[in-house]
């Protein structure tokens, strides 16, 4: 808890002026608020004693409006300073989290679902924001108000104050306890609710099985059973949160009864002495702290939850990125020619060896083909070059230097990677293509976008879209076919003018004729840069200088197209089958 608040305080400290002004405002507001009942009480005593005149009543009214206006104005400032600061802090934490997210490596995301991370960023962040905003503001307000009120109550009558206060612990404690029970039961309701929605989700997704086997009725009765339990838990929750406010009402009623009895007795003149004005002053003061007393329990809950949530957020922020620049990084390395060498590289996932002692070399400007069946380790090879993962054994050299010595950004800046299942953003096509190039010179950029689109045979498709290159992708726009996605991704990589261009089975969803045209265009691009083509189809390797065949993580064949055909191994076999397929398609 202490550690937590210390970490969080670093954020709070960025807004010293606002929190300071806020606290001063709270003191003023709380003090002014407790003066209201006093003025009313004094006015009533003046009536009682007959000293009130038509002139002096204005004094009381003026004073009353004055203190309430002061309290109100102060409260407006308090809310605007402290609450706005808490929103700013939320912004700051969100900024820091995003910054950290961009640094965390692939490994982290393999083990954390996006849905969970999103939940942290919404629910947990909100809980923390409530802690630094509402809890600070309401907490300070409550304590100050209670302090001033108690001071005034004791000044009015010690016995009466002590007797009334007997009920107070009961209120705060019962509220806190009830809130805890409610919270627990609420969680049980939520658990059941996720079961209900999970069942619906499963049923709707597996509707083909449900209908195919004619088990609709059974599903309905299962769903009903889950809902029966849901209703049961909900009513259990109602039994706890239903009495919450009625109980508060009752307890305050009890406190007020004590006040009436004892206070009334004093005013009557039995066992004590109290003016009727002071008595009403006292009653009004007590009414003023009803909400703050309840709020204490509520604030304690916010603090508790905010603390837990902040711990969870810290977990993310404290997670060291597995791959980042280190002391080894040489910041004088700013460019890459494109020679790549794998030196006895092995890569394990858990106990499974994905790549096993792989060695090969691509000279700068050369085109290398990588063949092999699914699961042979081709994509791992690509990920290793981009340093998305690090080899378990061996090393990778670029231009003769270990890639770990390159600044991560320099390395990636010079790569153009086209993945098999490209991720496109819900943005315009132009934005997606120009994703990896610096802004500036929009006209030149537009020209380049058209050029690469032409090159990857995408231009024709784009012309058919409603708004050409400004057409949005995704939910609110057009949905691209697999082939179109791949071609967009290819344009995105080529427009970067990378030193190393990597196509990771990037043409799998493109038909053969388009593939041929793309490869033709690609030859121009590949001519003056290192190119790595990972593919299933032999036709993709027609311009490759050399081809590496992977099987179960090992290099099993290596050589030029003609050499491999002559070797009559896996590659030659694949070539034969694909020739046949081509003839079948044309049939």
């Amino acid at each position, binding site marked *: 808890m202490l550690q937590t608040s210390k970490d969080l305080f670093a954020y709070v400290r960025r807004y010293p002026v606002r929190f300071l002004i806020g606290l001063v405002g709270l003191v003023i507001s709380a003090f002014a608020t407790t003066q209201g009942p006093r003025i009313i009480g004094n006015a009533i005593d003046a009536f009682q004693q007959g000293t009130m005149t038509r002139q002096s009543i204005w004094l009381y009214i003026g004073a009353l409006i004055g203190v309430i206006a002061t309290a109100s104005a102060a409260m407006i400032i308090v809310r605007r300073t402290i609450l706005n600061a808490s*929103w700013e802090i939320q912004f700051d934490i969100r900024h820091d989290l995003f910054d950290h997210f961009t640094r965390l490596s692939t490994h982290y995301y393999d083990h954390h679902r996006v849905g969970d991370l999103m939940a942290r960023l919404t629910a947990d962040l909100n809980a923390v924001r409530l802690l630094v905003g509402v809890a600070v503001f309401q907490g300070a307000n409550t304590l100050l108000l209670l302090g001033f009120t108690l001071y005034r109550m004791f000044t009015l009558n010690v016995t009466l104050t002590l007797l009334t206060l007997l009920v107070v612990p009961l209120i705060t404690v019962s509220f806190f306890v009830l809130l805890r029970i409610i919270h627990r039961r609420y969680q049980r309701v939520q658990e059941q609710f996720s079961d209900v929605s999970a069942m619906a989700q499963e049923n709707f997704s597996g509707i083909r099985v449900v209908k195919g086997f004619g088990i609709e009725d059974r599903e309905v009765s299962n769903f009903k059973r889950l809902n029966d339990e849901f209703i049961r838990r909900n009513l259990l929750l109602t039994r706890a949160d239903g009495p919450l406010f009625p109980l508060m009402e009752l307890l305050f009623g009890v406190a007020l009864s004590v006040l009436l009895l004892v206070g009334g007795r004093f005013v009557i003149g039995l066992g004590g002495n109290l003016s009727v004005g002071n008595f009403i002053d006292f009653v009004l003061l007590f009414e003023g702290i009803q909400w703050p007393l309840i709020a204490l329990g509520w604030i304690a809950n916010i603090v508790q939850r905010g603390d837990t949530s902040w711990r969870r957020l810290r977990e993310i922020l404290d997670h060291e990125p597995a791959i980042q620049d280190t002391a080894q990084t040489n910041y004088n390395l700013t460019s890459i020619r494109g020679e790549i060498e794998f030196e006895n590289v092995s890569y394990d996932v858990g106990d499974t060896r994905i790549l096993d002692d792989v060695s090969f070399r691509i000279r700068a400007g050369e085109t290398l083909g990588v063949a092999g069946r699914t699961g042979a380790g081709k994509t791992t090879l690509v990920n290793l070059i981009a340093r998305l993962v690090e080899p378990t054994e061996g090393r990778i050299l670029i231009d003769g230097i270990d890639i770990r010595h390159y600044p991560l950004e320099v390395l990636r800046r010079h790569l153009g990677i086209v993945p098999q299942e490209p991720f496109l953003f819900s943005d315009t096509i132009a934005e997606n293509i120009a994703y990896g190039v610096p802004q500036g010179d929009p006209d030149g950029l537009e020209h380049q976008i058209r050029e690469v689109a032409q090159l990857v045979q995408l231009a024709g498709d784009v012309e058919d879209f409603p708004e050409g290159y400004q057409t949005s992708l995704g939910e609110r726009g057009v949905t691209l076919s697999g082939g179109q996605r791949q071609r967009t991704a290819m344009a995105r990589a080529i427009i970067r003018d990378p030193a190393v261009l990597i196509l990771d089975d990037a043409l799998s969803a493109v038909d053969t004729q388009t593939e041929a045209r793309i490869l033709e265009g690609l030859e121009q691009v590949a001519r003056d840069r290192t190119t790595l083509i990972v593919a299933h189809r032999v036709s993709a390797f027609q311009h490759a200088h050399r081809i590496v065949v992977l099987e179960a993580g090992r290099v099993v064949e290596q050589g030029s197209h003609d050499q491999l055909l002559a070797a009559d191994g896996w590659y030659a076999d694949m070539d034969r089958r694909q020739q046949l397929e081509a003839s079948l398609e044309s049939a």
Partner: protein
Amino acid sequence: MSQLDPNRIYQPKYPVPDLDKPPNKRLTDMSDVGYDVEAAKAKARDQRQRRLRAMRNEGNIDEDGEAFKKAFDIDITKRLLGYLRPYLKQTIAAVALLLVYSAIVPAFPFLVQIALDRYINPTTETFAALAPAARYNGLVTLVLIYLGLRAVNFGLRYGYTYLVSWMGQHVIYDLRKEIFSKVQRLHMGFFDRTPVGRLITRITSDVDAIEQMMRDGIVGLIADIGLIIGLTVYMFSINWQLALITLTVMPLLFGVLNFLRSRIRDAYRAVRLRASKSNTYLQEQLSGIKTLQLFNRESRNQRRFDQINLDLLDAYVEQVRWFSLFFPSVQLIGALATALILYYGATQLIGADAGGVVTIGVLTAFLQYSQMFFRPLQDLSDKYNIMQAAMASSERIFGLLDTPEGVINQPEPAHFETKFKGEVEFDNVWFAYQKDDWILRDLSFKVEPGESVALVGHTGAGKTTIISLVSRFYDVQRGAVRLDGQDVRDYDQVELRRHVGIVLQDPFLFSGSVRSNITLGDDSIPLERVIEAAQFVNAHGFISELSEGYDTEVLERGAGFSTGQKQLIAFARALVQNPDILLVLDEATANVDTETEALIQDALAKLMQGRTSIIIAHRLSTIQDVDRIMVMKKGQLIEQGSHQELLSQDGYYRKLYELQYQTRPGQG
């Protein structure tokens, strides 16, 4: 092949910026080196006033881009109220308790007034004449009444809260069940078009919105109205002049609050819109984090994310700005009411010879009444928002409930004897999923009882469609599909499907145990039969090796099982129903190891024996085992016959066969 120039040095088009920086600083910032978040925040702060003004009209649409619905629609409301009918008694009881409660609440200040004016500070001769002890005794009696009423109100409030919650729960229970059952009956074409997420929203948040309306909206409104009436009656009966004076500030309060409300609501909508934008952006970035990193977009996307969040911050600030005025305004107008009451009281009390209509007790009571009167007015527009959300949700739910079911039963479905003989006939069938995009074109064929048929052909040839039509997942546009000579549309569809076993391409596993995945929750199937079926399809081996055998829990979507194992479970699932006709969408997966592959082939062969079977085959052995192969191309049957017959024809099938099924040289 291009000639390689070994001396070529790559010249990047985009220069790399200054790199002389410590580790972990953003380097090649894609021309974004100078980005400073504090500066961006400061700038946003400076321009905030202008931006806030621009924001004001933004909130007229919701997150889905739809205009906001009105808060009250007579047809929807009527239909919604219909759901309360089964709980009429509870509803009446709840409203009755509520009204009694509202009638008692204003009694408390009244009791305090009596306590003050009679016993504590007597204003009339009669009470002033009493001895202090007698007055105290009177006070005790009054306080006991006060406490008693408090206890009664505790019971009343708890009672109606519980009843209302009970009602709300039951209404949404009924609604959920109705939606779920409706979804079960909808035709397959509906699911092809509708994302699952949308259906989930109907059954979760839309239903919740209605529950909230039942609980807080309608009942809250009744409670507020009851309280306002009760207060008015008490106030006027105590002192009508003071009552009128107290009521004079109400229009002011109402006006000010309404103004603030509309501003807060606009800001709140902007908050929702912008928060959802921020979350959508973040979600997308996290999903595509690899692309982001590979293309060095860290800084630029950070800047964009910050910009989105600065816009969101604007909306929050706007919300705080109006919200911060809310309670202080109430407080200030409250002070105004107090001042008016005091002033009027003063004019009455000063020179009290007028007869003392206004006493100190009356003054105190009115100070409290004015506060109590404020409360319902404060949250009136919360209720408006709740109603509005509920109307929109109801409209969406009713839209779903009113969707035509598509594939429907005849009024009197044809009956068949306990089993189908198993004759399947396609008679000049034309079928399209979408208008005129014909998948099957005038297709006719017949499968004899007990015959096994394999469908082969390229993707899109119409194989899957044939299988879907036998199960009557869709209705044909022209022609007819017949089982045992009777149109499938004449049978009860659920009964039909119970006799047609289907193995889907994606062997969907439900959460639950392995056993319940095989029986699909039919507890009448004994374990022995489950084991028997599993043994028959070669699934018993791996299942019995699981930690808890058939009772092993299946994780989300069958994670932990290999594709091959899931397929074997799907086989067992089909077999345990002992279907008369078997349909198999066989997935040729590259991810199945050779051992499991052999098990699957063997199981499939056994399943087909002596049973009408239509199989989409990808495996050579399956194809060789069937009685007949039908070769499909573009929705038509182009070749059929046995494996050997087709091979000897040297047609389309032969090429297909050589491509897909020929074993590689060197691997035997």
